[in-house]
Structure formats: C-alpha cells, structure tokens
C-alpha cells in the first residue's frame, strides 16, 4: 500500500465511496464521495498527538472489539495514508458540541471540524472490483456453539488479531474472558462452510491452511499447550500446502475427523463434544479456548456494488466472472474486472495471482488505441426500427442507446430516433433480437433470415 501511495502514476483515494458508475469501457464516468475526514491530509504529519489525547474510547473495529480505539484514530498502525479520521458518531465535538482537544493540540493545525464530504466525478478507462469478503455471521446460526454467548468461543480472525505483535494483546494468545493463557485450544473447521442446513454450501478454501497455522502458533507460543482440530476433510491443495499441514500434525496438533455437536460452558472450561468418525466414538474435550474457522461470505453491501457496476452474482452473492475457466478476471461488462475474494473464497496467493491478472488485463485494454471485440454482436436495421425502445431495458449490458437519423419520406426530410448498439459494450447475448417487435435487431452471423434458412435446410 505504501508503495502504491508513493507511485507517481497512482492516485489513491481513501475514505471514499463510489456513488455512481456510468459510461462504458474506456469511458467510465465515476462519481466518488470523499467522506469528510475532519483532518486535512495535506497538513497532517501523522504524529499521533490527537489520538493519544482524545478522551472518547470506542471498541476497535479492526481488533474486532478486543481493544479500544479513540474517536480520532487510525484504523491500524500500517494504514495508508498515515492520517487519522474523526469518527463523528462518537466524537464529543460532534455529539456534545464541545471538546476540541485534538484541534487545540494539533501542531500542524490539520484538524478541521467544518470539513464536508466532497463529491466529484472523474473519467476512467477500466474498473477493477476488489471488495473482499466478510466472515459468516455464525452467532446467528450456530446455537450449538452458543450463539456467541461464550466469550472464549472466538473466530479465526480474533485469533489472528491476538497473534499480531501490534495487536490488542501484543501477540500473546489469551482467553478474552479472563486474559489467561489457554492450555487446551480446540479449533472447529467448516463453521458455515459446507453446511447447507445452517450456512453455505461451498468450501471457503483458506480455512484448512490458516487453522493449521493457528494450531502451530498455539504449540509454538504456549508451553505444554494442546491444539485439537475438528475437521470434516483436510483440504490443502496447493504448492507445499499438504506438507505444511502434515508438519503441524507431526508437531503434535491432534486432528480429529468429525463434527462438534455442542460447546458449553462448565465453570471456566468450555466442554466441546463431538465425534471421532475414524474411531467411531464420541469425544469430549475440556477446552480453554475454542476457535471457529468461519466461512467467507461476500462483504456487506455486495448488492449495492453489483447494482452500481452492473455485475451479476452467484447464488451466494459472489460476483460472477465471465467464464469460470477461460475468463476468470473479466466480467460480462466490458472494462470491469474482478480481483480477490469478491469473486469467490480464496487465500492470499490466489488473490495476488488474480489481482495481477486483473491489472494486466487493464494494461492490455488501455495500451491499445483500438479495441478488439467479438464480431457476433447485435446490429440495428434502421429502416425497420420504430424507436419503440423495447430493447433498452432488456439489454443486460446497457449497450443500446438512441440516435437520431434523418431520412427522406415521401419527398420530405424527417428526423427520427432509432436504437443504436454500442459495439464496445454488446456481448452478443441476443436478448434484444428476441424482444424487438419489428425484427430490426439482429445478431451478426445469426440473423433471422440465416436461422430460418437453416431451419428450412433441416426440415425440407
């Protein structure tokens, strides 16, 4: 991120939201709302005086509530740009109308309470959608794991934050309930993944590997600790993945094949009850900490993004690629590309590979003066088109527009509107040719006459 921010050809717009996308490949017009940060990034030096002195404390979103942040804050230490933002919902200056400590103390005079959202429109040649993922809300589905009522049943993301040296516990693995070091840690895989009854039917792909890593961290960081992993299958395809997982098992992580049927609190222990399907026996573990490998789901607001950029989605809300094998980073809308988990659950190497692919696709598109398109696209026979506009709402790619033509009818010159197909946007799906009441629209190479001729040849 730092490298991207410093690159002369990259403009990084942070703390902003895309409000509207119009136009087409090579000519996108994007409306961006830069939210009021209340801090002038041009003046701020990131010295940190403001957030050290800010009196309002709020649960940190980045640390998933494991630590507190201030009302003026940077979400995490490596954030780019290193400029804080004021959370107006919790800042005393905005809620109570008085405080002003950060403004008084700022040596660069960068704090500006009057700052307003800035909305502007700019032109872009291509769009890459990389909206990422969220974790499946297991608290709403898994009563057997306590519906989130037990403080020591956490997700892999919580565990990840605790393991981070700059995280809420400084890298120590502790129980959120009492801050003690856990000795027995149970990992439950496929919480929400591969569970059609309560969660999602798909495999979230990254969990087997990060759970193995977490098990290793438990064994590595806590002396005499035991890591027990309940799994359905160990799915570790990928270079050196299987070897890594096997190494963790050799280190002493206990892998139990079976589902956990119940977790409940018994004193300060969590009783984890499940089955070992290889032994055909019930298993009961008195654990100190339970870590759930929750499913990846599209990040919140995916419906809005899909509408904004005109993307189709799969049954779970992941954005649909143009072809699962041959066009995995393109979408059905020309000039719009996908990168990362917004297209489907994936781990970091896969995400980096896809993002690189998307970047190169954009370069390929923008480096040429002319664009290759599929020859099989719709055309309008203007002499037949009545301008009824039936085809406009039908087109899934917004490729049909109006144009005015002038023609001579019975000696008089008249102007009228007819449909026009944007050859850059049309994907040749044929929806408009079916909808056109006067058969003015035809797919090149598949005109009505050609198809009828084929029918004749077959039937006669």
């Amino acid at each position: 991120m730092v490298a991207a921010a410093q690159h002369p050809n990259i403009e990084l717009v942070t703390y902003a939201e895309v409000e509207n996308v119009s136009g087409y490949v090579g000519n996108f017009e994007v409306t961006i709302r830069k939210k009021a940060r209340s801090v002038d990034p041009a003046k701020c030096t990131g010295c940190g005086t403001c957030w050290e002195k800010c009196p309002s404390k709020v649960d940190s979103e980045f640390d998933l509530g494991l630590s507190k942040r201030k009302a003026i804050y940077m979400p995490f230490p490596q954030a780019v740009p290193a400029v804080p933002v004021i959370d107006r919902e919790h800042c005393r200056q905005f809620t109570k109308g008085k405080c002003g400590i950060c403004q008084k103390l700022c040596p660069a005079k960068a704090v500006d309470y009057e700052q307003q959202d800035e909305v502007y429109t700019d032109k872009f040649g291509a769009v890459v959608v990389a909206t990422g993922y969220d974790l499946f809300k297991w608290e709403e589905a898994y009563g057997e794991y306590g519906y989130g009522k037990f403080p020591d049943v956490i997700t892999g993301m919580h565990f990840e934050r605790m393991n981070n040296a700059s995280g809420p516990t400084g890298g120590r693995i502790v129980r959120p309930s009492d801050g003690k070091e856990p000795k027995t840690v149970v990992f439950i895989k496929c919480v929400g993944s591969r569970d059609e009854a309560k969660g999602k039917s798909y495999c979230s792909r990254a969990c087997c590997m990060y759970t193995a890593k977490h098990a290793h961290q438990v064994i590595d960081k806590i002396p005499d600790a035991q890591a027990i992993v309940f799994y359905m299958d160990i799915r570790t395809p990928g270079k050196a993945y299987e070897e890594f997982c096997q190494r963790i098992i050799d280190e002493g992580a206990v892998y139990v094949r079976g589902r956990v049927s119940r977790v409940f609190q018994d004193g300060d222990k969590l009783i984890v009850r499940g089955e070992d399907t290889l032994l055909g026996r019930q298993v009961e573990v008195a654990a100190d900490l339970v870590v759930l490998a929750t499913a990846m789901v599209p990040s919140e607001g995916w419906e809005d993004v899909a509408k904004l950029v005109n993307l189709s989605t799969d049954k779970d809300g992941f954005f649909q690629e143009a072809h699962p094998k041959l066009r995995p980073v393109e979408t059905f809308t020309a000039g719009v590309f996908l990168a990362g988990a917004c297209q489907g659950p994936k781990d970091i190497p896969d995400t980096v590979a896809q993002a690189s692919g998307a970047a190169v696709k954009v370069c390929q598109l923008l480096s040429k003066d002319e664009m290759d398109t599929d020859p099989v696209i719709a055309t309008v026979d203007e002499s037949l088109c009545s301008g009824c506009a039936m085809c406009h709402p039908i087109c899934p790619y917004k490729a049909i527009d109006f144009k005015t033509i002038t023609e001579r009818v019975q000696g008089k010159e008249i102007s009228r509107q007819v449909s026009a197909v944007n050859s850059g946007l049309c994907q040749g799906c044929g929806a408009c040719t079916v909808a056109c009441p006067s058969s003015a629209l035809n797919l090149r190479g598949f005109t009505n006459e050609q198809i009828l001729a084929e029918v004749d040849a077959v039937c006669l």
Partner: protein
Amino acid sequence: MKYAYYPGCSLEATGKEYNQSAKIVARQLGIELWEIPDWSCCGATAAHNADHLLSLALPARNLAIAEKEGLDVAVPCAACFNRLRAVEKEVRESETMRATISEIIGTEYKASNTTRCMLDVMVQGVGLEKIREQVVKPLSGLKLASYYGCLLVRPPDLTAFDDPEDPVLMDNLIEVLGGEAVKWPYKTECCGGSLSTVRKDIGFRLIYEILRRARDAGAEAIVTACPLCLLNLDMRQAQVAAANNDKLNLPIFYFTELMGVAMGYAPKDLGLTTHFVNPVPLLEAKEILRHPATRRETA
C-alpha cells in the same frame, strides 16, 4: 380460543398431573379444550420402530377427528406432539400419502388443521402478557432450570416453534411467572427415554448428568413439558442419586403445574402431591404457597 385436546396415553397414567394441571390452567387462560372423543394411542416410539405407515396412521386417526370439527390440536406430551406433527407434514407434502393414510384410517384426512404443543399454545398462542395478568402468587426467589428434552424442539423442521439449539419459550414463561430461569447447558439433552428401564447403565448416567448440571447451575427445581422426562428425572432420582453417592432432592415440575401454582391453585388439585420428589416443601420454603390463595379448584 378452542382447541381439540389430545392428552395421549401417558397423561392417563404416569402423567396424570400434567393432564390435571394443563386443563386447569387452560380454563384459567380461557382456552377451551375439546377432548378428541375416542382418541387412540399415537404409536409413540414403538410404532415407528415397527412400521412407517403404522406410525403415521395411528396419529392420523386422531387428527382426522379434530379436522372434521375444524379444530387445531393442542398436545401436552412431547412425544405425541412429535408423532402428530410427523404425519401432518407427510400428508401435507404428498398427495399419495394423503390418499394412503385416508384409506388406512377409513376416513378423509387432509391435514388442514395443525398440531401445537401445549407450551406453544400457552406461551405464543395466549401470550405472555395475558399469562402475566393471571399470576397471583409469583414464584419469587425460585430458581428453575427449564428442561425441553429432545423431542419438544427437534427435529426442527417438524417442531418449528422454538430454537432447536437454545430454546427460550419456557425460560420466558418462568420469568413471567416470577421465577428465575437459570442458564444451564443441558436444556435439550436426552433424558434417556426408555433406557432407564432397558439399559440402566446408560439411562441412569444420562439422568444423573441432567440433574447434576441443573443443580450445579444453581437450580432448585427443574421444569419440563414431557411426561417421560418427568418420569425419568422424578421417579428415578433417588436411585440415580444413590448410584452416584449424591443427594439431589430436586423437585421436577410440569410447566403447567407451576403456572397453576402461580395462578393460585392448590398443590393437591394440580397433582403436585403425587410426585416422587415432593415439591411442596420447596414451594413452602419460598413462601409461595403461604400467600393467601385467591382461587381454589376442586379437580
């Protein structure tokens, strides 16, 4: 509010108190119970272990009688509730099954009526606010463990009235009656059913775990909505305690009995005096019964 009432075999024998108290409480809440004339056994576990069609036809006969009256069915017993719901679902979902069942029982059954368990009828049908209005002797200071057992809320696509993993209706009812519902992990564990008779080694272990967990969670008594659960937890309690060198003395209530107590009815009329673990001393110790009675019922 009128329901066809299907007491089931247990409520004629081991679960008499459930029958008595359910009828009293229903009357107090303005629920009219029309007992299905000439009702027959639901088949229970025995029938669905023997033959699938038999296990559907037996309860269907009872439901068909209620359907002709145009009434939904209220069932106190958790096992009966499960069986009645099972046939209701199968008949509703399959035209062939409807025809088959109708032919077996010799009368038309379309599953146009529905079956509700007594807890659902009272807590969600009548509503907690109406129940609160009827409370004259709040169960103040009484710590209760609500125990749903396995059949009341499972399988969820059959029962579908409360959360299958963490049901709350009975807990909410306890709070409305003035008692305190303790948090405990064994709400929906199995009591062992008939294993307490045929495999005592397994059955007793299951019963003991439930009783012990309730006590350890601070409960002074357990509330249930199933005659077999009550039978196991109540009648077997002394044996189970002795086998584990423990003293338990945990009274087991039907939720309807506690509703009756809170509504001011005498323990004798609710059947409380027939329990193996006598619950009356606990109610007296909490000064729930000493409160001047406003209603007396002769059963």
